[in-house]
């Protein structure tokens, strides 16, 4: 149901709630979802693809992109700061490669969210809405794009590159996928390991067909032959939507090639680094070339930074000052820098919006475990492509990076901006009955 009167969000064209109500009222409902209009919106879109890089577990903003060298030691922490290519802007010494590339992105230092826990803030970060018992689960950004754009030839419209649906040791976040729209709009999960080998969990659901690893083309062909031998029309009909997507993908040569990192030069693969995150970013670039509308790269499946059977997320309640310099920041610095370079080199940034962020920041004051806890009152995000004015810092935090002193950028604003860039403006959002609030981040353009 369309609820015109409830919409407060602003599009990139500055359509306010009131203007939208007028526009909506003048437009026959039956005309609002025509393919012609979607095509028209698409031509007006700034981006064909969003790459949403999710630093799950929440990196410390002070120890990376918003250092406070003049704050007391129990706030600023032990890391030194270095200049960036922007006069007067400094990062910590942990991200030197990104400090040398500030001309390639815009940095927001005034993000805030409304939940101090991972699942809740994760759902805010993916949907702009709260999660909880009895609350309708809203569709995620990728699911909205997926529904609006529809499936392309062979490749699913919303691909998540991750070891699994983002979660902590207790539960997955509610807002990762289609929510109340149903699993048809969930992300298509692809696992990419540190060597670039691909695994598609959806295929495990197919009885008797277990192509676990698609590392080499010969293996892949064997797997495909096996699948085709085993699949009948009846079996296919019995599969769920994700298994059907997987089968469709695996039988489409062009789509399949998009997942084959062996097509890339050794040198380029090395530039991204031997990490799951790095190779996933390289895979994301190939999916951009294949025009997948929404690609979500998640740093990890679990938030936990150092816990048994988890995969070393950014949740550094302990060992913050060990893990950041030893592992997390070097991996991020190398992989994301290589990704930006590669995307620009191939001319893909004009049509791709890249957003990199976590679900919140970390406590400016060092905690009683010589580390940092959750901090939803201030964090950062990195934006590039699709006409984003790079080489700028938007917003500012106070002297201890505790709260923004400029306009707060909310998760709904992040969502509105991403969707607007994809041609899903306030009218289209109203049609889809999503994201009634949120302000486009004009400073980016």
């Amino acid at each position, binding site marked *: 149901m369309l609820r015109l009167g409830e919409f407060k969000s602003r599009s990139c064209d500055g359509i306010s709630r009131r203007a939208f109500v007028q526009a909506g009222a003048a437009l026959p409902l039956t005309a609002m979802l025509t393919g012609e209009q979607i095509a028209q919106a698409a031509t007006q879109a700034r981006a064909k693809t969003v790459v949403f890089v999710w630093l799950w577990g929440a990196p410390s903003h002070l120890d990376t992109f918003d250092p406070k060298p003049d704050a007391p030691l129990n706030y600023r922490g032990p890391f030194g700061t270095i200049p960036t290519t922007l006069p007067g802007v400094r990062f910590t010494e942990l991200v030197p490669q990104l400090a040398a590339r500030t001309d390639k992105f815009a940095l927001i230092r005034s993000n805030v969210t409304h939940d101090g826990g991972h699942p809740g803030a994760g759902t805010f970060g993916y949907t702009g809405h709260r999660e909880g018992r009895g609350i309708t689960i809203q569709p995620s950004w990728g699911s909205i794009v997926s529904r609006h754009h529809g499936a392309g030839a062979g490749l699913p419209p919303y691909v998540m590159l991750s070891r699994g649906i983002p979660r902590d040791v207790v539960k997955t976040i509610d807002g990762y996928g289609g929510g109340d729209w149903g699993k048809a709009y969930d992300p298509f999960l692809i696992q990419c390991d540190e060597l670039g080998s691909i695994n598609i969990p959806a295929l495990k659901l197919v009885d008797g067909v277990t192509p676990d690893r698609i590392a080499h083309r010969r293996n892949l062909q064997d797997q495909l032959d096996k699948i085709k031998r085993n699949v009948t029309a009846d079996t296919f009909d019995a599969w769920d939507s994700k298994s059907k997507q997987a089968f469709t993908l695996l039988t489409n040569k062009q789509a399949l090639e998009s997942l084959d990192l062996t097509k890339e030069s050794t040198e380029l*693969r090395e530039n991204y680094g031997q990490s799951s995150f790095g190779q996933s970013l390289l895979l994301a670039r190939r999916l951009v070339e294949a025009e997948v509308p929404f690609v979500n790269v998640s740093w990890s499946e679990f938030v936990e930074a150092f816990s048994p059977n988890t995969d070393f997320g950014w949740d550094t*309640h302990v060992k913050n*000052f060990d893990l950041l310099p030893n592992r997390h920041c070097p991996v991020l610095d190398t992989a994301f820098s290589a990704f930006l370079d590669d995307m620009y080199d191939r001319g893909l940034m004009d049509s791709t919006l890249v957003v990199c962020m976590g679900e919140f920041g970390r406590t400016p004051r060092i905690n009683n475990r010589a580390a940092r806890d959750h901090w939803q009152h201030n964090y950062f995000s990195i934006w590039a492509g699709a006409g984003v004015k790079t080489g700028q810092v938007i917003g500012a935090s106070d002297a201890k990076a505790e709260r923004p002193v400029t306009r707060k950028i909310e998760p709904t604003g992040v969502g509105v901006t991403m969707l607007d860039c994809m041609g899903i403006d306030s009218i289209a959002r109203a049609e889809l009955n999503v994201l009634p609030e949120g302000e486009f981040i004009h400073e980016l353009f």
Partner: protein
Amino acid sequence: MNSSKQTRVNGLSIRLAILLIIGLSPFADAAEPMRLTSDGKMKQDLCFTHDTQELIYSVLKTPQLIKLQRLNLDSGTVEDFHTSANTNEIYIDFAKDMKHYAYIRNDGNLHTVLQVQDVENGELHSLNPGGGFACVRALTISPDGQNVVYSFPETNGSQQLWQTDNKLQNKTELTKSDFIDAYPRFSPTGNVLTFTSTRSGNFDIFRMSADGTGIFQLTDHPGIDTRPSFSPDGSKIVYTSLRQGNYEIFIMNADGSNQKQVTSNSGKDDFACWHPDGKRIVYVGEVKGKRDIYSISVQDMLD
């Protein structure tokens, strides 16, 4: 500038340019590194055994598991150190007689314990630092195997060095400060400790007597200096420094003098320790996106 100085500067510039043109670094008095592993996996916490001279280190073996592994430098074979370990294990150190060794085990959610293995008696002692998110950070065992020093956070946000015996009884706080003290390492005699601390405002390297007295700052740079380790004769310390804008390996005299850069690699060089022969440094180097263990001779840098 007078003409003789000008000539000297020009000469240095020309020599530097020649070195760069032919692909050598200006730190070429250290020999070329030799790669010891080739899997490219993430590795850290290098430490030699004292009998078989095997290299033990922790490695990200699967996406969810850090294991201790042993590398035999003669044969090149790699094996799990604790074959049945099913959770993360890091930071190992051995007593000189190899009768005890200590390491850190990740036994719960954001929780680690200190473990000491009594090799002769087969006893395993475990120090649980408390409930919640309590983590022992790094450790070292005295050469005689009697004491373990480890770093552990305080409620004021600082992190101190503690000492305990090899049965993990009788804890004593060695440092008492408002700062973060980390990465302790005993000297070969066991009389001295070197460690990293934020006492100077950022991570620098310090030393002190094993009883916690006589703290003395060895490095002073706004970039990170960290993870110090004594040479087998105790006269030198190897450490990691970010002072050049990239993680490189340095050595210095044990009193902080004569600081020299050992590696010069565009990737991250870190987690260094001395080879038992005292003439080589073994470290984790990131080359072409892969993190492998390298050995480099520093014989020409020892004076």
